[in-house]
């Protein structure tokens, strides 16, 4: 069988060599607790600090603004619940979008049950929230605005800066949180320019291992800690630092090319894929032009997503029907973007990494072409 083609990099990525090498180091030699006073602890603490600096450098922020977490879900939960609790006395309104990842969306549902007024902005046809929506939704009573930087299913880039401007203009006490899990390491992010107070990212989307992520918390902003105990991470996230994950994230960042240098190649790949796939009968693009070129969402009209997935799997090609977190369910992101249910039922998400090649796109397009030719369509309503 030909080598596996992995086009599901928004679900997770393959850990890179440096990530594994660094991970190995903290498992076999530098395995101390960074809080210990002896030499092993010291070595570990130094390593932790270097890793934190590497993350901070990517975001153009201070190292003390980085809190390591167990991943995207913890980061998003911490940020959303923490910011809401902090703002509770000053206002009751939260603005977010209808296309957030479940780790934000479900947290919002819970806050709503607790009495917050949650405004969920709907995307335009192109999958993005229009900047004007933020200006009309953010009121002086707003205490939290949470918006993702890149949508995990369509790749559509959201106007986070506009949300920051809307907060400033309204004079609201709101904190701005940004879920950057799909964006970090793939597009340049300067937290200050973006105007965010909190930002979430995850390691395993950029070739580190699962179980590690971080939360950026702007200096001067305080939110209640989500995990309390031994006071690690300056009391903002207790628990012995998860050094294996942190080491692998550090390693992954060492190997990660500078985002802006990588983007042109990915752009080219994305357009190449678009030309190849839209040449097939019945293929319609769901990702908008100008989206993050790591995510490519299309519908193959007349075929069920799961059928296409199974069929491509037989060719050794791994793709997804939407987000891996909601397997089987029709994508709410696409439905919220105003696509018809039958188009949503036929959606496929290809997600690329820096290792994805044109040859892999070719093989995938050829396989999909064969599938369309040989398989029967479902009766579509």
């Amino acid at each position, binding site marked *: 069988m030909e080598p596996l083609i992995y086009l599901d990099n928004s679900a997770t990525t393959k850990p890179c060599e440096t990530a594994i090498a660094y991970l190995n180091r903290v498992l076999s030699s530098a395995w101390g607790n960074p809080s210990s006073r002896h030499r092993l602890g010291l070595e570990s603490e130094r390593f932790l600090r270097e890793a934190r600096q590497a993350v901070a450098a990517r975001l153009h922020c201070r190292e003390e603004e980085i809190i390591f977490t167990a991943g995207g879900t913890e980061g998003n939960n911490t940020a959303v619940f923490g910011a809401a609790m902090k703002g509770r006395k000053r206002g009751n309104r939260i603005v977010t979008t209808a296309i957030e990842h479940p780790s934000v969306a479900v947290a919002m549902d819970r806050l709503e049950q607790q009495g917050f007024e949650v405004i969920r902005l709907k995307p335009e046809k192109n999958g993005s929230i229009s900047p004007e929506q933020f200006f009309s939704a953010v009121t002086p009573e707003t205490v939290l605005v949470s918006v993702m930087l890149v949508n995990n299913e369509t790749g559509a880039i959201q106007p986070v800066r506009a949300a920051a401007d809307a907060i400033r203009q309204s004079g609201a006490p709101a904190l701005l949180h940004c879920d950057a899990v799909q964006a970090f390491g793939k597009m340049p992010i300067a937290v200050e320019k973006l105007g965010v107070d909190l930002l979430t990212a995850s390691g395993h989307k950029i070739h580190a291992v699962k179980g590690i992520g971080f939360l950026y918390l702007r200096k001067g902003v305080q939110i209640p800690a989500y995990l309390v105990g031994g006071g690690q991470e300056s009391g903002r996230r207790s628990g012995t630092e998860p050094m294996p994950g942190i080491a692998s994230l550090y390693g992954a960042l060492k190997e990660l090319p500078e985002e802006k240098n990588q983007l042109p190649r990915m752009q080219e790949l994305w357009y190449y894929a678009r030309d190849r796939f839209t040449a097939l009968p019945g293929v319609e693009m769901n990702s908008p032009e100008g989206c993050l070129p790591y995510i490519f969402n299309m519908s193959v009209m007349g075929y069920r997503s*799961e*059928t296409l*997935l199974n069929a491509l799997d037989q060719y050794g090609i791994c793709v997804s029907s939407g987000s891996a977190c909601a397997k*089987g369910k029709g994508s709410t992101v696409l439905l919220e973007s105003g696509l018809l249910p039958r188009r949503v039922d036929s959606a496929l998400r290809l997600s690329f990494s820096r290792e994805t090649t044109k040859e892999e796109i070719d093989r995938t397009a050829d396989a999909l072409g064969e599938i369309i030719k040989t*398989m029967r369509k479902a*009766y579509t309503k």
Partner: protein
Amino acid sequence: MKEIILIKDGEIALKGLNRCNFESALAGSIRRRLKPLGEVEIRKAQSTLYIEPKQEDYDFEEALNRMKKIFGIAAFSRACVCEKDITDILAKAPVYLKETMESIRTFKVEAKRADKRFPLKSPEICAQVGEALLNAFPHLSVDVHHPDEIITVEVRDYAAYIRGGQIRGAGGLPVGTSGHAAVLISGGIDSPVAAWTMAKRGLMLDAIHFASPPYTGPRAEQKVRDLLGKVSQYSGVIRLAVVPFTEIQEQIGEHCPEEYFTLVMRRMMMRISSRIAAQHGCLALITGESLGQVASQTLPAIAATDAVSTLPVLRPLIGNDKEEIVAISRKIDTFDISILPYEDCCTVFTPRHPHTRPKPGQCEAAEEGLDMEPLIERAIAGTVYSYIDPFVKGETDP
């Protein structure tokens, strides 16, 4: 202190001359289920089975758990073995029942004197045991109407037994005593419940699943295996036949009118299933149909599918509402698996407007374009068999 498990076999007691066949079948079920826990001796007397572990540190908790899922058992309990001597009974009762008695406030004692040679009459046994317990646990009082716990002393052929309350068994008949049948299983909520219901009436199960790769995926098949795994905890080992169905579905899509798609598909399933089932000695098919639930479960549709089965088709859920079926599926722990959202062969090509009231002859006409016999033969030839064993797990353990 020697402990055993006492089993009341319920409905079997009503059987006439073949009663011993039913009892041997039940003993066989029990022996197979308990085998991994260690050797036991099983004896029968007076519609009671006695399970006596041969080792000291027997895992009674797990044995009782497994007992709950054996059909043919009306009730069972853990009991302490005593000599048929009131002194021994009075000495052991407070010791054996210590944990139970300390957790309750009121109790009553019942005595069953199956061995009429025992010198004391039942009320006398009750009085003496009750007194002994009251002396040992002064916080207790007797309540003959609504006691927290009923303590039973049974004087039987071989020995006397002291026990607390009984645990309700799964009921039904021992698996295998009604013969062998094959259930058509898709992965939905109904078919596992139908399978369980018929196993409860003493049927040994085969299962037949239709897979249409790549329209359906490996997860759909795994889901069926997981569902059968739950059912097999009651029914024992199940032989699973996975029938390749892609070609037939594609041919139906090609040659049959769309509104007949589901009907013709179900008729093909019946044809193939009755042949596979008969090959393996099954005397009936089992389906999870419930009258009127979906388009293919109207009376005319059922008649159309029944017409092509060469075996009787058992539909234990035919008169059940969805809620009743869901309640059973929760009880037997299949519900959460059933609702996993994978395409199965029934959902792949659902027609926009399925025909719900086919008249005799219409299905035959709709099937005219199919090269029937070779399609069926190829599907049967490509069928893959495997066994679902209730107590084998952990295939992916590294």
